[in-house]
């Protein structure tokens, strides 16, 4: 936990405190570089030997966020170092040289450098190098780190890879759009939620190992796994989480893979301590309804959110955004097992911090099956990410309705609110399709939002986000939104935390609303599909109960602070940005 905190803290202030390793055999340049980096408020470690640099990096992959290296070094060619760092640690590397010859620049590019700076380096150039950390985290499949811990970066599954480049421009929006599109088709139908049991995960890992981690593609994995009713999206989202998890665990993915099955599952459960955080669910059905005081980044009620958020930040969001592949929850726990999360409860345990760590949520899912709060965590994380931060235009109208949170404040926040609204509307309209007009639901929704987030979050947590599709077949947007949210969350490490917070609050509202009012099952499935992180899983049967109970609770509580929902998040988001 402590480590998490540190990571979180580092992330919050990102890029301040970004940990840079500077390598240059020229002591004059090294000294100047060190001073420039300090001026940018980065944390700097220097060495004039490439070999020493490798040692430092191998010692602890998570110790650094970025490497800056000279090209011409006596003990090792800078490009060689670049290659090794990229392969072994998957950290962003910036090349530095007095050679302005384009062929050197090209060499840097082909060897995988994130950037190529010419000496003498000016401070203006160094002020923006943190972007490479963020970019790497967002787009990296195998690698890691974004800011701070790099874990945050959303593991890109094949789906996201293509988007990595676009992210730069308008990450949130673009990602969302893409995801939305992806989700459109599959999401329109109710999909059973997938619960990643240990057996299932084992099959998954076996398939991945067989294909080779680097080459593992969801489609192929799916084929190899040969599990009925498992969709490519389910696999993709699980793969994403898995990758994140691996990154998190260690740099050596190969090693992890060998042991990952249980570890992965265990990690997810225990990571965030979600389990331990009691979420003020209020409903008896939820486990540990205690206040989620534990959640560091999020307010107690947002415990669930925290979880939700984190997945989004890390990869959970991504998962969500992708088409309901995450299939986390199966409404009909047939092949894949049953949902654990959906039911809720574990939300309390959501430990935002854990999620942030990027632990694979799905794992928790399995644990949830045991009706531990832990499972909630998984669910939560999923749910959160599913909220797309960016609202699709279509849904705008929905979102804006009567929900105060819909105010377009911080980016993520805004979206969250919109989503909330949307959800509310959807929810209020009852199991029928989402009511864009949601007039009647507006009031209900608002109320719901206000209701303790915990109530909402529980059922939603993982699947909630996807609710949109389920809730309103006609309103695929809602679904996407969720994903957007997730994607947004993942967008930036620094912002990540904040956005998570925001999201949390935001998610609570919408998720719960959606879940509660409308057909919970649908909501879940929808959400799940969207969520990718679909850890929510939980028992399908109980889901309804939970939803109902939460609804009641929510209504009774009605005191969910708006701040929780997202206002607070907004501000934090803002600062982050």
């Amino acid at each position: 936990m402590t480590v998490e905190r540190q990571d979180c803290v580092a992330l919050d202030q990102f890029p301040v405190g970004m940990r840079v390793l500077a390598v240059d055999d020229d002591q004059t340049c090294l000294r100047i570089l060190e001073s420039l980096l300090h001026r940018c408020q980065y944390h700097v470690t220097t060495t004039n030997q490439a070999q020493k640099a490798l040692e430092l990096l191998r010692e602890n992959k998570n110790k650094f966020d970025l490497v800056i290296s000279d090209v011409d070094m006596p003990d090792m060619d800078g490009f060689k170092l670049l290659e090794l760092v990229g392969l072994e640690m998957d950290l962003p590397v910036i090349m530095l040289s007095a050679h302005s010859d384009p062929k050197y620049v090209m060499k840097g590019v082909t060897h995988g450098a994130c950037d190529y700076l010419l000496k003498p380096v000016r401070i203006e150039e160094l002020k923006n190098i943190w972007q490479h950390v963020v970019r790497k985290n967002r787009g990296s499949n195998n690698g890691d780190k974004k800011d701070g811990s790099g874990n945050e970066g959303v593991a890109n599954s094949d789906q996201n890879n293509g988007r990595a480049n676009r992210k730069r421009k308008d990450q949130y929006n673009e990602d969302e759009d893409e995801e939305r599109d992806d989700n459109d088709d599959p999401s329109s139908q109710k999909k059973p939620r997938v619960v990643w049991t240990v057996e299932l995960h084992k099959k998954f890992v076996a398939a991945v190992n067989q294909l080779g981690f680097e080459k593992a593609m969801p489609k192929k994995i799916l084929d190899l796994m040969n599990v009925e009713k498992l969709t490519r999206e389910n696999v993709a989202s699980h793969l994403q989480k898995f990758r994140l998890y691996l990154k998190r665990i260690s740099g050596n993915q190969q090693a992890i893979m060998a042991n990952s099955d249980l570890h992965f599952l265990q990690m997810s459960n225990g990571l965030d301590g979600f389990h331990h955080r009691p979420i003020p669910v209020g409903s008896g059905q939820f486990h540990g309804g205690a206040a989620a005081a534990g959640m560091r980044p999020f307010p107690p009620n947002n415990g669930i959110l925290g979880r939700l958020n984190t997945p989004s930040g890390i990869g959970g969001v991504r998962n969500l955004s992708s088409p309901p592949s995450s299939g986390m929850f199966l409404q009909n726990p047939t092949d894949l097992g049953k949902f654990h999360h959906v039911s809720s409860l574990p939300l309390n345990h959501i430990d935002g911090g854990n999620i942030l760590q990027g632990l694979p949520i799905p794992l928790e899912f399995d644990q949830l099956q045991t009706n531990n709060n832990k499972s909630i965590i998984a669910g939560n994380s999923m749910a959160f990410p599913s909220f797309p931060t960016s609202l699709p235009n279509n849904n705008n109208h929905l979102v804006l309705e009567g929900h105060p949170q819909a105010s377009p404040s911080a980016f993520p926040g805004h979206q969250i609110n919109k989503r909330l609204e949307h959800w509310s509307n959807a929810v209020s309209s009852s199991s029928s399709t989402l009511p864009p007009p949601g007039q009647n639901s507006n009031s209900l929704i608002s109320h719901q939002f206000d209701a303790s987030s915990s109530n909402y979050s529980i059922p939603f947590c993982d699947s909630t986000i996807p609710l949109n599709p389920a809730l309103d077949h006609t309103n695929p947007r809602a679904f996407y939104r969720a994903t957007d949210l997730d994607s947004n969350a993942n967008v930036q490490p620094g912002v990540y935390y904040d956005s998570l917070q925001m999201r949390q609050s935001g998610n609570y509202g919408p998720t719960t609303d959606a879940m509660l009012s409308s057909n919970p099952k649908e909501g879940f499935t929808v959400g799940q599909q969207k969520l990718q992180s679909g850890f929510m899983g939980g028992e399908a049967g109980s889901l309804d109960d939970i939803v109902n109970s939460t609804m009641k609770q929510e209504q009774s509580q009605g005191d969910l602070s708006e701040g929780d929902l997202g206002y607070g998040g907004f501000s934090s988001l803002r600062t982050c940005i």
Partner: protein
Amino acid sequence: MDAHVAQLQMQYRNYILSLYQQGFLDDQFTELKSLQDDGSPDFVAEVLSLFFDDCVKLVGNMARALDQTGTVDFCQVGANVHQLKGSSSSVGAKRVKGLCINFKELCEAKNYEGCVRCLQQVDIEYKTLKAKLQDMFNLEKQIVQAGGIVPQVDIN
């Protein structure tokens, strides 16, 4: 005292300006100065001493490489020139950097005579710069000792 300080400061200012005007220093030196603050009050002096140490080392390497009785390894010479170019550009040693650019071309052309001459020029140049900057530091010390503060010189 004040008059004395003011005079020293004036002297200092003029001296710095002349160094820029004569091409000994360039903008990078200004950047270097800007990195010096209360947290690292001797930053410029520290970096410059590192630079001059590098100069000694690199010139020595090049002299040895060029002094080979057999075939001269111009690549080796070129590598050292490259490094000197990098560090001189980083500290703002404009003339030294300029010489390095020429030197590089000579190495690539494997012009032995040209390289030797250029190396001699580099040697003279960095030593000259070293002496001038030493004078500058001395002036700074005098100002401080006289109770004044070292003025920020605006090159523009």
